[in-house]
Each structure stands twice: as structure tokens, then as C-alpha cells.
């Protein structure tokens, strides 16, 4: 997280940045590039900045202390930017840049009220997220985690005809809950697996996006009934909070696979546990949970047919670099009073 204000000396901070960067391997050269661009741009602007120099999230108290008098704030999705933080920051704050496409951690009403501009990172992470969603879907449907476990623990005998059989994409119906950029990207990647039909549900039809993937608009009930694979790609809003619940799961096929890489809050985890343990659905893959991290004694971990990843959908080197560069550029544009590459309309 980076705080910008115009008072302190930059030298020490530059060294801190270097130390953060050089511990990583050569794949992280772009990080160096990003931060150096940021540094040089900021030098030129004659602002300087402070960095919470850690891989771990900034504790709340530190956050409230450090935002005081900031003109700009660059955060990630682990920081809840609400009225308390904005009040602590004070009237100088004119731009908030988040290194994420999700913005459920930001109090948009409060930001709008204060005339603060917001930058985020759509599109640059679409490929990585779509790719991870499919990785998760396939790992779930083809039982990869059960399989690697058997290979390591002696459950692997010789080749057997029905051992570890899974469900194929060929000839299936894939349903997308929330058809945005990521939903379309997922469908595009699934097509050559010989998917028979794409269907989607959303608050309203999305004809242009749907046309790109020849997807049919259906009700939520129909999505549940017809999908062999159901991927949740919607934003987390008051309307979608807990929307994947027993009402949805009870209508799904008992051979179906449920995948969520959107936000944990969209799923009612108790209902999901019920559905999985009673065989209402065949399997589930989650990249997002409530809370994150999910406590290691959570019941979902006891299920063989539930695959849980630690929110790594955008975790490719090139994508994280692109996200950080975009977040930096959004921030700089906000400070200069210029159009942002990706501004969130409030």
C-alpha cells in the first residue's frame, strides 16, 4: 500500500522500495520497472510517498495513522476503505487507486460524497482470471486433487477402468452467472472443449456480450436446472450477497460442478456444504471464500469433492505486474487531475 503526501524526504523510501524489489527473482523485473516509473514520476511531480513495506496487509491502526493528510492512496483488496479511513485521511485525499477489479472493499457512497476519484484494474486481469477459473473447473471436474493425493499416498494401484472418473466438458451445458468480461473470456476458452451450449443469467440480458459466445439468456432457475458446469462471475453487491444458496443448489443436477471465482460473499457456504455432502451437486471449486483465509478447520475442507484455492485467480507474474502498473498510472493521473486509464464510474 502506498501513501502519497508532499512533506517527507524521498531518499529513504526509494531505498526501501529497492529492498522490496530486489529480493525477488528476474521475473519481477517489471515490478522494478513499475516502481521506478512511479518513483521518477513522483519525483518529477515533486510528491513523495510512503510504502507499507510488507507482503502482509497493513494493520488497521497503522492504516488510520498513515493516511492522515494523504493526497493519494494506492491499496489492495484487503483494505476496507470506509468512512473511518476517509475521515482519518482528511480533505486532501483526491484519488484512491485499488489494485483489483473488485471494489466491494470500497465504500463508494462515501467516496462519491467526498469527490474522491477511484481507479481500478479491469481487463488487464481478465485473461489470468478466466484461465484460473478453467484450471479450477478442470481440477474439480477431473478430480485432480484427489488424484494427486492418491499418487502420493499409495492409493494408486494399476490402471483401472472406472477409478477416479470425472465429468467431461464435451457435450455439456455451461452456465455463467453474471455475464461480464470474465464470463465471456471463460466461455471463449471453453468452446474448443466441445461444450454443447452456453447459457447465462444476469440482472438483464447482455446481448452484445452474449452474441460473442452465442449464449442464451435464461432465468436463474433454468441456469441451475440445465447447467452441467455453473461458473459464478458476478460482482458482489447487496443483490448477489448469498445468492448461491440452497434454493440454487437444490435445483442443480447431481452430476453438476459449481465454480466460484467472483467473491466469497456470493455463496452461502453452509448451504454449499449441505449440497456437496448430500450429493445434490457433484463437486465445487472455490477461489474465494468467507472469510479469507478460510480457517483450516472449516467443514468444506473435509469434503473430497470441494477444491479450495487461496484467491489466486489473477496470480500470474505478467498480470500482477500489469495490475500494479495500471494502479500506479491511475493514481498518477488522479494526482495530476487527468483522465485515468481505468476510472471507476461512481
Amino acid at each position, binding site marked *: 500500500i502506498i501513501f502519497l503526501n508532499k512533506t517527507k524526504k524521498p531518499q529513504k523510501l526509494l531505498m526501501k522500495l529497492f529492498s522490496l524489489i530486489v529480493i*525477488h527473482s528476474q521475473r*519481477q523485473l517489471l515490478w522494478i520497472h513499475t516502481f521506478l516509473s512511479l518513483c521518477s514520476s513522483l519525483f518529477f511531480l515533486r510528491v513523495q510517498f510512503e510504502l507499507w513495506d510488507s*507482503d*502482509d*496487509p497493513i494493520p488497521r491502526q497503522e492504516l488510520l495513522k498513515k493516511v492522515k493528510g494523504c493526497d493519494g492512496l494506492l491499496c*489492495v483488496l484487503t483494505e476496507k476503505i470506509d468512512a473511518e479511513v476517509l475521515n482519518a485521511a482528511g480533505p486532501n485525499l483526491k484519488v484512491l487507486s485499488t*489494485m483489483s477489479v473488485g471494489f466491494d472493499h470500497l465504500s463508494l457512497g462515501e467516496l462519491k460524497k467526498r469527490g474522491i476519484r477511484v481507479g481500478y484494474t479491469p481487463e488487464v486481469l481478465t*485473461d489470468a482470471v478466466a*484461465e*484460473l477459473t*478453467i*484450471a479450477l473447473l*478442470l*481440477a474439480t471436474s*477431473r*478430480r*485432480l*486433487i484427489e*488424484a*494427486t493425493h492418491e*499418487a*502420493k499416498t*499409495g492409493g*494408486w494401484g*494399476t*490402471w*483401472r*477402468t*472406472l*477409478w*477416479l*472418473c*470425472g*465429468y*467431461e466438458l*464435451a*457435450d455439456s451445458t455451461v452456465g455463467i452467472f453474471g455475464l461480464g468480461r470474465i464470463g465471456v473470456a471463460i466461455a*471463449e*476458452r471453453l*468452446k*474448443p*472443449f*466441445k461444450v454443447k451450449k452456453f447459457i447465462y443469467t444476469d440482472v438483464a440480458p447482455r446481448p452484445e456480450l452474449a452474441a460473442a459466445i452465442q449464449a442464451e439468456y435464461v432465468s436463474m432457475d433454468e441456469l441451475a436446472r440445465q447447467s452441467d458446469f455453473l461458473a459464478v462471475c458476478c460482482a458482489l453487491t447487496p443483490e448477489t450477497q448469498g445468492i448461491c444458496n440452497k434454493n440454487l443448489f437444490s435445483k442443480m443436477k447431481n452430476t453438476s460442478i459449481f465454480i466460484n471465482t467472483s467473491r466469497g460473499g456470493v455463496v452461502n457456504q453452509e448451504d454449499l456444504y449441505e449440497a456437496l455432502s448430500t450429493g445434490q451437486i457433484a463437486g465445487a471449486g472455490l477461489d474465494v471464500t468467507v472469510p*479469507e*483465509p*478460510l480457517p*483450516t478447520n472449516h467443514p468444506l*475442507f473435509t469434503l473430497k469433492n470441494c*477444491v*479450495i*484455492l*487461496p484467491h*489466486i485467480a489473477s*496470480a*500470474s*507474474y*505478467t*498480470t*500482477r505486474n500489469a495490475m*500494479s502498473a495500471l494502479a500506479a498510472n491511475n493514481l498518477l493521473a488522479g494526482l495530476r487531475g487527468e483522465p485515468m486509464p481505468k476510472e471507476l464510474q461512481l
Partner: protein
Amino acid sequence: MHFAQPVLRVFVTRRIPQEGLELLQRAAVCTVSLWDSDEPVPRAELLKGVEGAHGLLCLLSDRIDAEVLDAAGPNLKVISTMSVGFDHLAIDEIKKRSIRVGYTPDVLTDATAELTVALLLATARRLPEGIQEVKSGGWSSWKPLWLCGYGLSGSTVGVIGLGRIGLAVARRLKPFGVKRLLYSGRQPKPQAQEVDGEYVPLDSLLCESDFVVVSCALSPETQGLCDKAFFTKMKTTAVFINTSRGAVVNQEDLYEALTAGQIAAAGLDVTTPEPLPTDHPLLALKNCVVLPHIGSATYSTRGIMAKLTANNLLAGLTGEAMPSELKL
């Protein structure tokens, strides 16, 4: 009751999916002697069971060599394997005895290509590592560089052996934003055009690929192909995937390459031997994902394979054209 001709006898070496067994039973062309187990038939039982058999339905775990063929005797006219691979069959011996062979190409192409892509993605995006961290309490919060992997977007993929399965894999990888699709083999393939495949020498493929996918048949030429020299030529950030046959890979050299950082990661669905002993060094590596040969393991595909295997066998018994005959 007497029969116009001797009853044809068939030995089936495993409990195959119902769809296949039913076909054999309903056809009423043969009597079926079945090793009714999910586990492989022991060698001694196999040698006994094939005695006088006209047809043999087997799996890839059954080595059908001169000893088995001799034990079977002169009645044996057809061997039907429930696999597309036939490296477990002593082809020369079989040909010598004019025995016909059925196998299961095409019907398992989709499932196997799908599993190959699943394995590639799981390896490149570090899924098993991620899941381990989650279960062991290593997941604390979202972090910018934690568990970062290699994406397909903008990458170069090299397929060694662009056959049915290799081509099917290439088709599935394309929309992930693969920039270049290279392939190597004995000669260029016209069907490569469909995926904009570039035919290149193996060395070039190894130097330039971010993802190397081995999809060739096991033959004397490909035995041990993936060795120290092979891995040395690859990029240190490259991901190696093998879903063909274990013997194409020199496993000691692969272990070296992975631990020395010569390549970034490997995913294997096939090993030598199978199963791989649980204390094998490859199983202890974080950057090596090993699956227990589940390439074609979907309910629908195994059912279809069983039916095809049964139909190949029946055709061989009655002297008709097989749906999928292996040219010897």
C-alpha cells in the same frame, strides 16, 4: 443341444464397464470368461485363462507377449485392447500369428486432451501448492506476488507429436491467448494449419517454448527422448507436460532439471513404473504434479471405450470389419 460350430471362447482380463460386458453377452457369439475384478489379472491366471481362447479382451496393464500367445494356442484370432496405446502388445509376435488387433483411438481423444490441459493449467498456475497452503494454514491474506504462476497469454506452446491428441490439445489451448504454436515430429502435418501450427526442429521447439507438451506414441525412437540434453535446452521458466507414456521421459534427468531450476515445473500423467512408488523423489517436489494415469478417465469416455473394445472383439471373432482395427 448341439452347436453347428465350436463355441467361441473369450477371455476378458478385467471387469470392464457394463456397457461393454453387456454387448459381449447380448451378442451371443461367444462364451465370456471374465476376471471379475477391478484389479489386474495376475500373470499365472492370465496364462491359464487364455488357454484355447479365440478372443482376448485386455487392458494396457496386461503385457501380451509370446508367452501369453503361446499359452493361448492356435485358436486365438483377435486381441482387443481397451486403450489407444499398444506398447503392451508384442506386435511382431501377434503379426506372426495372424492375430487381428482392435484398439480405441478417437473415442478417448477429447477426455485425454482435456486432462492434458487440466494438468498443464494445474502445474502452471500451481494449484496443488495453493491447495496445500490452504489446508496447512499457509494462507494468510491476498498478497501481490504469492503463488504467482505462468500464464498462457502471449506464450509459445510446443507440442511434441501433433497426432489426434496433440492436435486436440492445441485446439483447446489456442483461445487462452497462445501467441505461437510449435510442433515437432517426423514430418509436417497438414491439419496443423487449423491451429496455425509451425513445424520446427525439436531443438528449436525446446529453446523457444514456454510450455512443452509431449503427446507422441512410445516407440524405440521416442524411448527416453526427454533426457538431460532435452531439459538443458528448455527455458528456465518453462513448464513440461507428459501425458503420453512414462518411458518417453528419463525420470532421473527430469528430477535433476526440476531441482536445479533448469525448468520451472513439470506435470506427468504417466510414469515408469505405474504406479510410481510413494517414496519416489519426483513425488516430493513442489514443482512436479503427478497424476495416476487418468487421461481418459471420464464416465462417458470409459463407457464408450468399453463398447468399442467389445465391438472390435466381436468383429474379430466373426471375421468382419472392426470399427477400429490396428494396422500391423
